[in-house]
């Protein structure tokens, strides 16, 4: 009997049937339902494919002459902000790989969760490329101040490494901030083509947020990462004069190492600020609930819970 004679056995997939979706309970999928990394990656791939869109086509639908100064300013800011996503995704890939190796011997399921995150970073990076190019190209076409190479390179600086759970929560909040901002923009711009772009990008950011929540939850579910770190990052953003205030804060940190896009928005001369702080606060609280299982509703509750989780 040769290899060719062996009847192939049709494997029953552990990937759920139906439309593609984010695996929100990744830890249980890996440890209880026996999903392999091939299965997880297949789910990532088909979700990515189902959500693809064309920057070229979207740009063709914008009526450049109808754009107002506010429209153009929003586009210009968005393009600059999106420049910082590539170093974020590059760093995530590298950090997930390092974490995967760190856990390989002592907690193989956690190593798999880290690898799933690192693998997904390629889809994230590709999707963010759409955002960056759609806005920067549009800003350019509509005659906004060009982004010089020095600024471009400056915005590409890599964020310093941190604890993996903190990193994922920070990225989830960053996506929340972006999604809410673009959602607000969508209601301000008049051109239907531009509105569609903001709507599409906001939907992508929500999907990214959902992925970051799923990975962060897997880390907490593994028992190796502590919920306190999720709350610490949330507090950093929500506290009075915290990161959520973005460029509206009186004094910004001179970081020197990397650029936080939320610090760099230039909205001073505009009559519109896409802030919606309460909405962001509510979404951060809901993210914390999904990641840690702990329910909070306000920034004060976030701080109190964080202090309680810390001890003295």
């Amino acid at each position, binding site marked *: 009997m040769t290899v060719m004679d062996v009847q192939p056995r049709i494997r029953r997939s552990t990937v759920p049937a139906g439309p593609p979706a984010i695996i929100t309970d990744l830890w249980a999928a890996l440890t209880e339902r026996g999903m392999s990394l091939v299965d997880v990656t297949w789910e990532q791939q088909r979700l990515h494919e189902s959500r693809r869109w064309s920057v070229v086509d979207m740009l063709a639908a914008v009526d450049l002459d109808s754009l107002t100064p506010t429209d153009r300013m929003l586009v210009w800011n968005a393009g600059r902000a999106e420049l910082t996503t590539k170093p974020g995704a590059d760093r995530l890939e590298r950090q997930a790989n390092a974490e995967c190796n760190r856990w390989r011997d002592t907690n193989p399921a956690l190593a798999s969760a880290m690898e799933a995150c690192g693998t997904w970073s390629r889809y994230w990076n590709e999707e963010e490329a759409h955002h960056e190019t759609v806005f920067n190209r549009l800003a350019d076409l509509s005659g906004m101040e060009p982004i010089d190479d020095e600024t471009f390179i400056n915005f590409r600086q890599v964020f*310093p*490494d941190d604890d993996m759970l903190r990193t994922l929560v920070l990225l989830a909040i960053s996506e929340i901030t972006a999604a809410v901002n673009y959602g607000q923009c969508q209601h301000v711009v008049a051109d239907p083509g531009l509105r569609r772009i903001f709507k599409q990008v906001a939907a992508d950011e929500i999907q990214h947020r959902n992925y970051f929540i799923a990975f962060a939850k897997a880390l907490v579910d593994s028992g190796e990462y502590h919920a306190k770190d999720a709350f*610490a*990052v949330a507090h*950093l953003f929500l506290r009075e004069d915290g990161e959520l205030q973005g460029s509206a804060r009186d004094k910004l*940190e001179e970081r020197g190492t990397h650029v936080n896009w939320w610090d760099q928005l230039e909205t001073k001369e505009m009559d519109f600020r896409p802030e919606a702080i309460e909405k962001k606060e509510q979404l951060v609280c809901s993210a914390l609930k999904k990641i840690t299982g702990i329910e909070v509703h306000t920034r004060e509750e976030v701080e109190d819970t964080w*202090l309680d989780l*810390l*001890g*003295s």
Partner: protein
Amino acid sequence: MMKTDVQSYLREKFAEHAGLPEDQLFGDDVTLATVIARSPRMTNSIDLMEAFARTANALRKEYGARVRLPAMPLDTPTTTVLKVFQEEFDRQREAVA
């Protein structure tokens, strides 16, 4: 008398959570950025925030006052932080009394 007690308790607790001796923490030219750079337990401002929070928790356990610290830029001197801690503590005390 009370004030010096709280001050020395604050210094002691913060030094403990920063993993540094007090004289390296509260000199004239020491800022929050210096603390992060010197502390073996800190890599960024979240670690710093956590050390303050643990200090606030200790203060609460010892004196029963819950202190909330505002966000402070990294070029703030540690002596200013101590002052703010003290002011917040006094405010809490008065509110309770």
